[in-house]
Structure formats: C-alpha cells, structure tokens
C-alpha cells in the first residue's frame, strides 16, 4: 500500500467466489495495472474475517465462499470496474466499507536484554496516531549467578514480559502488527477491523 497520512483511506472489500481464484485475480489485477498499492488479504496477514459459523456454511455449500481484503481507496475504482466486467465469471463484489480503525491484542515474554530492546522498540516507537493501551512491561534482572546454562534449576538472568492492545488507523496498526509477527516470542492476536460507511452504491 502507498504511504498515506489519512486514517480513512483503507477500504475492506468482500468478494464472493472461490478464494484462490479471487486472490489470484485481484493480485494479477494490481500487477497488470502497475498499481503501486498491494491488496492485504485477511488470511495472509492475520486479520479477522468471517466467524467460524460463516466459514462452515461456506464449506458445506450453504453460502458462497467469501474473500476479504483491504485496498487503498485510490484502488477501489480499479477493483470495482474489473469485477463488474461481464467476462469476470464466478466473482461478485458483495460489500465495501471504510476501515475506520484496526486493533490487536498482544502479550510477550523475552529473556535477553537484546530481545527486550527489540520489543520495546516495536511498541514504544509506534506511529503518532497509534495507541498502545495497557503497556506496562515488567522487567526482572537476577543475580549474575543465574547466567549460564543449568540442567535442573533453570532461571533466566533477565526477563521482560507484558501485554497490551494496539489500535489506530489500519495501515499504521498493520505496520506494528507485521513487526510483532516477526518476533516469535510476541503472541499477537489477529487484527480486528472497525468498519464504517459503505462505499458501494445500494443495489436495486
């Protein structure tokens, strides 16, 4: 996605159709149009989409499978016109809503000062419009005789643990989420999106 300062320029789109087909089509569309943005699919990047019940309905054929992805507002027209093309069989744009906010909860436990510094950098140097609620990490340093390996009485010399919730505009929260995902000792939940007004004209 292109850099943007606006918080309301991300749109969540829901397309009805086989997931692999939709994902391939949309990605191909962006590459073919040489659009610098890139769609963010929910499954790939840990964003909550349907409930389990809705997924189950899709699996057993009671409803069509749905693909959720987020694009920049500037790319909306590209996707709408492509999916409206009559040659585009088996895919239909079902919904499009502004993403007003995104958030995710996290917790972590790390055991070296270097890892502690890395975690602090992720959650203390967030973009200005992102907030981290509940950030109060507990740091423990023990006596130097706890350094080194032990067989029966392992105690870490250093420990930093904490938890919290990151929230703010989608793109900036996604950036923090991606950084957190790359550190195995941070357990982060999937991102939750708060959706606003629809961007699609009403049918009928």
């Amino acid at each position: 996605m292109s850099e943007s300062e606006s918080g309301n320029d991300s749109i969540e789109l829901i397309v009805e159709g086989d997931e692999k087909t939709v994902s391939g089509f949309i990605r191909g569309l962006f590459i073919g149009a040489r659009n610098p943005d890139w769609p963010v699919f929910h499954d790939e990047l840990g964003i909550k989409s349907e409930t389990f019940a809705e997924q189950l309905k899709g699996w057993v054929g009671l409803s069509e499978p749905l693909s959720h992805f987020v694009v920049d507002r500037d790319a909306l027209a590209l996707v709408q016109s492509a999916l409206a093309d009559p040659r585009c069989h088996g895919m239909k744009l079902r919904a499009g809503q502004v993403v007003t906010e995104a958030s995710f909860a996290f917790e972590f436990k790390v055991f070296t000062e270097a890892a502690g510094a890395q975690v602090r950098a992720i959650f203390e140097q967030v973009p200005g419009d992102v907030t981290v609620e509940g950030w109060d990490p507990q740091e423990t340093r023990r006596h130097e005789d706890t350094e080194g390996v032990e067989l029966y009485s392992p105690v870490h010399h250093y420990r930093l643990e904490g938890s919290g919730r990151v929230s703010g505009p989608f793109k900036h929260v996604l950036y923090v989420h991606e950084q957190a995902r790359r550190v195995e000792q941070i357990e982060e939940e999937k991102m939750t999106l708060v959706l606003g007004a629809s961007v699609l004209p009403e049918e009928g």
Partner: protein
Amino acid sequence: MGNLASGSDEQRPPSPWRTQLALALLATAAVLLLPDIAAAAGDAHGGDHPSLGARLPLWSVGPFVGILLSIALFPLVAPAFWHHHYGKVAAGWAVLFAIPFLVGYRMEAIDAILHIYAVDYIPFIILLRALFTVAGGIVVRGSLKGAPKVNVTLLAIGTVLSSVIGTTGASMLLIRPLMRANDWRINKTHLIVFFIFLVSNIGGSLTPLGDPPLFLGFLHSVPFFWTLNLFSPYLLVSIMLLVGFFALDTYYYRKEPEDAKQAMLAQESEPLKLVGTHNFLYLGGVIAFVLFSGSVKLGDVHLTAHLHVPIQNIVRDVGLVALGLLSMKTTPKALREENGFTWGPIEEVAYLFAGIFMTIIPALAILGAGVDGKLGWLVAGVQSDASYFWVTGGLSSFLDNAPTYLTFFNTALGGLDMSAAECMQAAAGCGEPEKVAVLISDKERTLLAISAGAVFMGANTYIGNAPNFMVKAIAEEGGVAMPSFFGYIVRWSLPILVPCFVVVTFVYFM
C-alpha cells in the same frame, strides 16, 4: 577466664537457636521412629535374618519420593528459590533418611551407604563430568541454511551422536548451531521440541554413555553392549519422529515470509567446521575406560568387610578424571565459552544425585526383596513387559529417569524367581550380577521395556530428563517461544510421542 557478670563483656551460649531447634527436631524424629526401626532392624551382620529390604518400613522411602518431587516441582513453582537452595533441599532429604537409618541399622546402614556411594554415585558423577567436559570442548562453527533437509539431517546426526557423547553433551554441542541456522525464521518452536525429543532423549538409547539410566544399569552388571538391543525400537521411534518432523518443518518453512527466505538463501554460508576435535580422542578414551571396566577382572579392593570395589572400576574412574583434566588443560577457554560451558550443570548433578542416592537406598532394598518387602504389591503388580514400559516411562516423564530406571530395575530383579538350585550353580551365590544374568537370559524383554521406558519417555515433559530444561532455557534466550510445562505436554508430547510409544508397545512388548 573472663568476667561473665560484667556488662559489655558478657558471654553468650555458643549455639544459635536455629541449630538447637534443628537438632531437637532430628532427635525427636529419631526417638519417635526408633522403636519402629529397632523392632525391624535385627542383628546387623551374620546369623539367619531377613534381608535389609524385607525389614525396612515403607515410610523409609518417603525422603526418596520427597526429593524426586522437589526436583520435579520446585523449578515450576519456585524457580528462583530452587536455583539458590537446591543443594540444601537435597541435603535435607538425605539427612532426614540417613540419621534414623544409621541410628537404627548401624553397621548395616554404614555398609549400604558406603556401597551406594562407592558403586553408584562416584562412578556416575565421574562419568558425567568426563563426558560433559569433553563434549563442552568441541564447538561447531560455521553457518547452515535452516531449511527442512538441513534441519532433519542435523537432528538425525544429533540422534546418533547422543549415544556416543551423552544426551547432555550432544544437546550442548548442537543446540546453538541449530538455532543459528534457523535464526531467520519466525516459527522455530517445533525445531526445539523435536530436538528435545530426539537429541536430548531418544538418541541416548544405544550405549551406557548415552543416558544416565543406562549407565546405572551398566554399573549394576548389565553388559556394556547389551543396550544395543534397543537399536530396533530406537530406530523405529527415530524414523517416525524424523519423518514427522520433516513434514512439519516443511509446512512451517513454507509459511515463512518470502523476503526473509530469499535473503537467507542468498547469504553466503560459512563452511561448517569442528573445533576442539582433539576432544574426540579423549572421548575415545572415555569409551575405552568404560569398556575396560566391563571386560576385565583385576580383583577387588576391600574398603570394608562387606564392601568390595573392583580394581578395574577404580582404574576406570581415575582414567576418566584424568581425561577430564586433560580436556580442560588442552582446550582453550574461548571454545568452552562459545558453548556456554560452565560447571553449573555438574554441580547441580553432584548435589542432587548425592541426595538421590542416599534416599534411594530403602527403595532399592525393599524392591530387591521382592514380595518379601513392603513394596511386594508393586513387584507383583507390574508383571508384563508392556506395563514395565509404561509404568517406568510414565514415572520417568515426571521424575528424573535415572532413579526411576534403577527403581524398576530392582523391581524386576525382585520379581525373579531364583531357585536355590540356580543360586547354588552361581559360584558367588545369588548376588546382583547373578540376578542380572538371569534377568537378561530369562526376561530380556522386561529389561528392554524398562530401559526403553526410562530413556524414551524422559522426553514427555521438561522434567523427564536433565537436558530438557537446559535446551528450553537456551532456546528461550535465543528468541524461541517455548511452550509452558503443560503446553509442551498437551500440544507436543501427547499428540506426537504417545502414539509412537503405543506403536512401540505393540511391536515389541505385547
């Protein structure tokens, strides 16, 4: 003499109140327990009297249970306390058994204590120290590219190496190269868990050097090469786990971010090399000395009227100490620092097993007495090979596997039906070597079940075998998110290991 009545120079009684209280408690325990002990003690030596095991009361195994539970539970519930006071806790349990035992059984107790320390504890510590020192001087340098084929090869090498240099040594040698190779990855937990399964536990099945339970068996007359009989179940479980690991690692490898994968593949790799390889000579020396002690008979040294230590064992132990000292002298300190080598683990083993070997005396004696002892119900109850495998293994999962092996080894010996004729045929009578020979000739699968259960199932929890916690701690400090104690059991050992062990049961022990 000073003026006791003057103010500032007044002298106080020497004993602090805590020492007096401790002595009072011990004396009270001895007095309260003495009638029970004395009634069962009988004559110390000579005459026709039941064996020690037949006379010891059941509660005498209490300190043994206590020390094993302490080792199992304290690291989980009070790790900082345990780290600083494990030695005192072990000593406390040992003294709690030793004092009434010595008071009640006198010379018999002294003989039993000297025997277990001379025959089991000292050789055990000497061997572990030698292996740990030698392995700690070998470093694997260079970089590997952490992909499924590389990782499974590394695990397979570690699984073989464990039987040569011990599970602790192999774990120490290979855990950091494995982590370095996979440093670029987000999903690493499975690497460490399978490392614990294979290198820290199952891999140590093939020789007495591989895992402490098997060395204890060797010290108790199981022939050195007998453990090669575990090759078939070892191979079966290793193959199942390596195949499962490869599939899982491939799945996680594909989930890694593409940019990180490409960067890793594009990186120039530093060729792998082993440094400190002269320690392999010392390792050969360790194997040679252990084999020597099992192959020759040079006579005995009589430490007491009833305690005879074979000369070849003394030669072995002196040789192992010398090899450890040579390794320290000839290996640069920097190499050991690369391995994170410290004496901490050996100190832990020394203090804890000093306590374990003291407190295990009644358990071994009672079980050795078979149905005549107070644990006759256990001897009678664990009969089939499958039940030996699961009971030994189940307890080894939660209590250290070395004393658990020894306990069930003695249970099996106690369950032998040695006729007077068999005893008379053995020139030396019905001592332990004769009983072990009968166990191997008549019930070899039972011994296989006990050995496999103790070694394999040490992998079931973090507390089942010594290297497990060490590997977990090293991994956590290397940035790997390791599961909690119960998370490890529920998400890893129950769904992966237990089905493997069920297969082993049906193939080998039914």
